[in-house]
């Protein structure tokens, strides 16, 4: 039940994000062009959710913002799962001081206040490494990289615990006796058996990533305007609470649905 509800929410948002160009063609406007004669317009046929402080269509910005927010979520899911699984499996396999070191590192990252550190990292000028700065894709990659640096922890802890449980089973001993190399044991035998816990951790990492991206964008450090993201839409809506209180409703609702979708998915997967 939770699983299907979560999948339906995420699927619906994904479809909406993909449909953005068609909606744009249908409405005949685009999300970037200001129209200062129609600021803060109420819902009309031309602007189903009204317009923002620059007269841009809120529905279109919401849909294109979904592409950005979901892209960050997906990128973090990929990165955090890859890094976390690798570290978790390494720790479980190596044991001893290497295991202790990696897990202390994970514990420390969990204990530290994440957002202040994210703010520090997000304020770094990536232009100094010769990376492009300013366009939306570069922003997405920058934010995703920073979030992976914190997001791997949950995946690694779950991967390690699950891998340790599998490593003590008889079939692992059988595989080793049959002459399988350690890499084959970990990747061919252990990995397929811990996919369940990994999927749960990944879904939770996506939820955390979407929340963190929106918070960073809200603070002005994430996706830079004029590219729309749910977080930076809320940032400008906050300054306009007196003029257009409704503009603050939709982006937050979208974040709520996306994060709740991921959480329900994780819960549903865990209960299976």
């Amino acid at each position, binding site marked *: 039940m939770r699983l299907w509800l979560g999948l339906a929410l995420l699927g619906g948002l994904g479809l909406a994000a993909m449909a953005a160009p068609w909606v744009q063609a249908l409405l005949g406007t685009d999300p970037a062009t200001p129209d200062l004669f129609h600021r803060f317009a109420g819902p009309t046929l031309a602007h189903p959710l009204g317009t923002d402080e620059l007269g841009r269509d809120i529905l279109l910005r919401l849909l294109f913002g979904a592409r950005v927010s979901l892209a960050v979520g997906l990128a973090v899911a990929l990165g955090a799962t890859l890094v976390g699984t690798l570290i978790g499996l390494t720790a479980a396999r190596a044991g001893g001081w290497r295991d202790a070191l990696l897990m202390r590192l994970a514990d420390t990252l969990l204990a530290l206040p994440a*957002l*202040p550190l994210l703010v520090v*990292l997000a304020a770094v000028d990536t232009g100094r490494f010769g990376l492009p700065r300013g366009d939306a894709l570069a922003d997405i990659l920058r934010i995703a990289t920073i979030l992976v640096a914190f997001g791997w922890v949950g995946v690694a802890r779950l991967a390690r615990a699950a891998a340790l449980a599998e490593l003590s089973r008889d079939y692992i001993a059988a595989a080793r006796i049959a002459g399988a190399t350690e890499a084959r044991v970990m990747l061919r035998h252990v990995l397929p058996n811990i996919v369940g816990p990994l999927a749960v951790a990944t879904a939770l990492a996506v939820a955390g990533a979407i929340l963190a991206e929106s918070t960073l964008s809200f603070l002005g450090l994430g996706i830079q305007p004029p590219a729309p993201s749910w977080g930076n839409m809320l940032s400008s809506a906050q300054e306009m609470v007196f003029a257009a209180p409704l503009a603050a409703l939709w982006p937050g609702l979208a974040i709520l649905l996306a994060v709740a979708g991921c*959480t329900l998915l994780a819960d549903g997967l865990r209960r299976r």
Partner: protein
Amino acid sequence: MLLLICGRLGQILLTLALLSALCWGAMGLMPGDPIDLALTSDPLLSAADQVRLRALHGLDRPLSERYLAWAGALLAGDAGFSRLYAVRAAAVLWPAVGSTLVLLGWALALSAGLGVLLGVWGARQAAAGRAVDALAILAQSMPGFWVGILLIILFAVGLGWLPAGGTPDAPGLLDSARFLVLPVATLALGNIAGYARHALAAMQGELAAPYIRTARMKGLAEGRIAWGHAFPNAALPLLTLAALDAGSLVSGALVTETLFARPGMGKLIYDSIMGNDYNLALLALLLAGLVTMLATLAADVAQRLLDPRLAG
């Protein structure tokens, strides 16, 4: 036990050293330095002045050398001056810490209290449990700053009962309280959900244990069973989870204080990073890190003292 505490304290110091080096490096990579900022505000500064000023403040030295000089001074008890406020960094920090402690204290008390009540209630009645769980997932999925914006729209813009942010002009207890309500509510709402879900899971586990059936068989009242027998056992893991949340509370304070323009630690960290105020930013970051790690350590120690299975 003493060995454990000493080892962990050493670990905390090591982490803080690494953290300060990392943050120092990151700040060196941020766009602009204090001289650039001075330049934009004073067009009369020439290029020669710029070079002279950089040399005067040591900004022409390599990053690693500046870090070592800063770390040495900090160990000697000198945290340097704040660039934004033009006073000693510590003098800016302490009032902000006080403001944040008031905010966090109320938010923590409110969310932990209500969260535990909701969790215990949910564990005792199946229907209530499902409702608490669903509401908690919903509340945890809302970004904290959005909750704050919604509260501002409702109570400050719509009803006009409470101020939308800032601090009172005259220090008075009633006025301070009015300015505190919305930030505390914003911070507490997200945290109640976490505590409620943890308390619900812990209490459901305890209430399914055989000793609860024994308590029922000897005719104890349900309230007595839940609060007298099950809750003390469920409370221990909750303590650890609450300590782990210390970091997220500081994160929440950053967002809440920025949103409501409250002069606290969180806003100070944000403002000082944005304003190239390295001394202040690092001092505040290190303090925040130290406090959260000490909270985790304290919870571990308390757990060992309170749980006879771990104490032995």
